[in-house]
């Protein structure tokens, strides 16, 4: 069922990570990604993994739901792994037949690539699992604030993102309903050729688009009725404020980068 999509779902909770300022979490994600790309050896990957596992433990997000969110990635992971395995040049040949040669270097590289993608996605999941979409967009808006000087419509962008995130579950539900209704009239989405399958989508897409436009229209009217006119002079109900644990987290982030850099300079 479509409802089982967990991508980017928010898990309400009350851990330290849940309570961190969204800006801290966004910055920490960037720090984490940079550190991940700086890491080159088993040791530094080990450090990163420890950091990730520690964060997951603190966030109290069940490992099962993180693993479930990874499922759609399997194809990408396999693809990356296979590409790196076959097309990396190396010296120590492990296996050779026909046009395919697998070297030790390639094996190591493929392994690291897969691990890196896994850890990247895990880190991002940790952000979306522990941060509600609203505070996430709040954080983004605040972080991108300086861009306003360059006439970038920061508030509008974050409002659009917020609305888009808000309507994903609604649209999924709507799709489910329309699919059931058309199935009740004998629509068949499973069998037939590729063209048949594409044609079978029309009875879903047309009503879906119409209802999306209708919803957008209603939302715009509702916003105007409440005199919404954009970001200027708008105050917030929840003010973002850094607290002690945010500064502590920044400290941890700096330490992480430092450790990885030091390890890198030692060639580890």
């Amino acid at each position, binding site marked *: 069922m479509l409802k089982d999509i967990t991508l980017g779902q928010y898990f309400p909770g009350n851990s330290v990570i849940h309570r961190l300022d969204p800006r801290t979490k966004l910055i920490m994600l960037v720090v984490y990604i940079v550190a991940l790309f700086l890491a080159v050896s088993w040791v530094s990957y080990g450090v990163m993994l420890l950091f990730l596992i520690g964060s997951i433990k603190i966030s109290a997000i069940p490992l099962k739901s993180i693993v479930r969110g990874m499922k759609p990635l399997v194809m990408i992971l396999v693809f990356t792994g296979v590409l790196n395995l076959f097309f990396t040049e190396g010296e120590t040949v492990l296996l050779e037949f026909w046009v395919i040669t697998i070297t030790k270097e390639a094996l190591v590289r493929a392994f690291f690539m897969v691990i890196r993608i896994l850890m990247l996605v895990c880190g991002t999941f940790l952000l979306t699992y522990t941060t509600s979409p609203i505070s996430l967009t709040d954080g983004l808006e605040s972080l991108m604030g300086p861009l306003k000087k360059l006439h970038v419509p920061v508030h509008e962008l974050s409002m659009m993102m917020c609305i888009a995130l808000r309507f994903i579950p609604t649209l999924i539900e709507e799709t489910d309903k329309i699919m059931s209704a058309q199935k009740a009239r004998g629509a068949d989405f499973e069998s037939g050729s590729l063209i048949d399958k594409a044609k079978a989508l*029309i009875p879903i897409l047309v009503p879906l688009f119409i209802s999306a436009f209708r919803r957008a229209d209603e939302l715009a009217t509702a916003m105007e009725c409440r005199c919404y006119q954009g970001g200027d002079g708008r105050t917030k109900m929840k003010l973002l404020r850094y607290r002690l644990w945010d500064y502590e987290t920044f400290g941890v982030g700096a330490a992480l980068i430092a450790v990885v850099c030091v390890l890198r300079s030692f060639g580890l």
Partner: protein
Amino acid sequence: MEPILQVQNLNYIYSQGTPFEHQALMDVSFSVRRGEFLGIIGHTGSGKSTLMQQLNGLLKPTSGKILLDGKDIWSDKKLTRQARFRVGLVFQYPEYQLFEETVYRDIAFGPRNMGLKEDEIDRRVRDAARAVGLTDAQLQVSPFDLSGGQKRRVAIAGVIAMEPEVLILDEPTAGLDPAGRAEILGYIEHYRKTHNAAILMVSHSMDDVARLTERLLVMNGSKLAMDGTPAEVFARSDELLEMGLNIPEVTRVFLDLKKMGLDVEPVYTIGQAVEALKKLKGGAAVC
């Protein structure tokens, strides 16, 4: 007479094996005869919608059986597909599922999926359109140019065109004005009579179900709480009110009259109320 639809010990669990697990149906059993008008009432979340989607094979029961003409609809793929056509399901606000360029083609969607011949499709589309009061001229316009009430009729015609033996409707009159409600209910009743079809109608209007149906199913907390004639069901007004359900307005008035000491039998339709009052008045005149 063999019942057209039999539901046996139906259980259904949503998202089994996840933290979101939820049992929507618990040991539900009942049967439906041909030509019967059945009302389904129940609170939001009592399992009505889930039950309806079980009956035409949209959802597969976790356990239990659904027999259509004595045959389990899940025993064979062909039977499951047939169940979709023989048991027509009109969802709530069905006008949001319209998609074709013309009303004609939208109504023809169901019959076309059945693999019928062109002339048979044409006959069914025209019959169905007439059955819900659409004119021939309206068949050629875009469904999106019609009013809300007319769209609703097109959507209902789209299911009726499959000429199902059991027609299930989820609140077919929700959001319509009183005249529109009466018309839609009239078309449904007419379809039942002309096709000897069984009708299952989910409704929140107790007055409607009291007036139209011969039998009522009451869903409460995933279970089938009551199954009987409107008289039997509304006789248990206290239990209904406890479930957070309403009773017909006249029933409420008459219950109050009885409390005030008037000697009246419980009624549940306007017609019965009139009769009861006449009797009362006649009796008083004799005194």
